[in-house]
């Protein structure tokens, strides 16, 4: 679905190559400033970098703008809004590349648990509600590739788990989902984990092989030990 080769952007990203196959759930982890957000921006075609990027086998540079909006959805970290659009208006923007046909809007608002806020201005939402609104906008695109930058930041435990569960559902539908995360324990249930360290890909592969205590210590500077964990899951 996405193939990126030798992505380089100054010192922010250096020689990063990756593959996101259809029906896969990938986590990007790394310390602050490792380049996670930058990587997502570059993959989404929102920031130019050296190297090649292909979406569904087609060179990104050859994909015209409206088609980009149909193939890939991106949710950034910055959720500042200065205009009082309603939640429904914002979610409906996800259908921009489809001529604003309004499809999926109600479904995705329900899926993100914001249907009851539909007519409320986004300027009057909490951080978590706002994040769910922008996630719903990305879902409404029905795009085959979903890139979410720290989607669980400022979400409570239940909504975090729901977002991760939703990501798995999208994976099961055959989409490629890439999520940047700080929670290494959550990353354990992904199909693939990419570890970024100072702009370079330090490791990539199955979580149980990638996230070993030695690498975690080297990249994050913390001691990792398994076991004695509280587990949280949706009822």
């Amino acid at each position, binding site marked *: 679905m996405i193939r990126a080769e030798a992505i380089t952007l100054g010192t922010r990203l250096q020689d990063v190559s990756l593959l996101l196959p259809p029906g896969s759930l990938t986590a990007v982890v790394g310390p602050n400033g490792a380049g996670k957000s930058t990587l997502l921006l570059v993959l*989404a075609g929102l920031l130019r970098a050296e190297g090649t990027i292909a979406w569904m086998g087609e060179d990104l540079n050859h994909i015209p703008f409206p088609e980009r*909006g*149909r193939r890939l959805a991106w949710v950034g970290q910055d959720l500042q809004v*200065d*205009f009082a*659009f309603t939640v429904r*208006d914002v979610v409906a923007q996800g259908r*921009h590349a489809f001529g604003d046909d309004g499809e999926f809007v109600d479904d995705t608002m329900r899926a993100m648990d914001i249907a009851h806020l539909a007519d409320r201005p986004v*300027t009057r939402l909490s951080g978590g509600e706002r994040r769910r609104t922008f996630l719903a906008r990305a879902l409404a695109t029905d795009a085959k590739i979903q890139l979410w930058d720290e989607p669980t930041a400022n979400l409570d435990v239940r909504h975090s788990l729901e977002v991760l569960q939703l990501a798995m559902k999208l994976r099961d539908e055959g989409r490629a989902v890439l999520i940047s995360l700080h929670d290494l324990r959550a990353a354990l249930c992904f199909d693939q984990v990419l570890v970024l360290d100072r702009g370079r890909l330090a490791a990539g592969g199955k979580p149980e092989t990638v996230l070993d205590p030695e690498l975690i210590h080297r990249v994050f500077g913390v001691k990792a030990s398994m076991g004695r964990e509280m587990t949280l899951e949706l009822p």
Partner: protein
Amino acid sequence: MKRSWAPAWFLALLLVLAFMGSLAFGEVRLAPSEVIRALIGRGEGLSRTVVLDFRLPRALVGMAVGAGLAASGVLMQSFFRNPLASPGLLGVSTGGALGAVAALALGWASNSVFALPAASIAGAFLATFAVMALAKREASAEHLLLAGVALNALFGAATSFLLNLTAGRFEVSGQIVFWMLGGLENRTWAHVWMVLPGTLAGCLLLLPYRRAMNLLSLGEQGAQSLGVNVRRLQWEIIALSTILTALATAVGGVIGFVGLVVPHILRLGFGPDHRRLLPLSMIGGAAFVLGCDLITRFLPGELRLGVVTALLGGPFFLWMLRRPA
């Protein structure tokens, strides 16, 4: 959600009332029936002359100026993602002012009626090109904004310098000051043809951008990820905004706060959706400027239009700043 167009009809009614008012009121007061008779080419000679040769061109210029400035304000606010942005921010108005003042101070304006508007338009575009050059290609909104602040200061200083040069030539410096305060006095059909077709075309060209402007006002990257060619959209709306501001400044001088106050009030009342906000602002801006121009005719002394819009807009702006978000 069902969207009512009732506000548009209400604003249109206000506009019609302000339009009729500006044809009826002044030194010679005319009854509505006299105005209508004059408009369809009947009526006595004096009222026909007053309406067709003086007040009609003035009202048409005022409508074009108001619609253009308000639309330009909506564009700026969407571009900067800031409801407090306005056409003057990029230095476009002061650029236009500098051009016009140069035409007056250097004597070009006495050679041709078109010299002053032409110089004003040239100044406005000079300002836009300067901002574009200063802010480079991949500039963020903040960079553009700061470039506008610097240019505003620069053009303001240059204008003051030219004003100093004309010291002693009271007629010219009087004209310059008069023009810097903005107004619609003595507008002729030449001014109508100068501003109206361009403003009308600009406003119509803007309408297809409304949906994309909704996306842009919630963030550049998000808009681009949803399929908008953001870079192109931004330059197109900046160019159109410059043209609209330049045309308005060319025929009316510096008339502040229209682009700020009108879209802001309408946004408070009817929401930020540009599909409604943009056309409503055009109608509302036209009505606001005509209304303010009417006020200048009722108040004692020769109060200028730019002074009235500032007297109404300034306190409103301060109130907005103090208002919790």
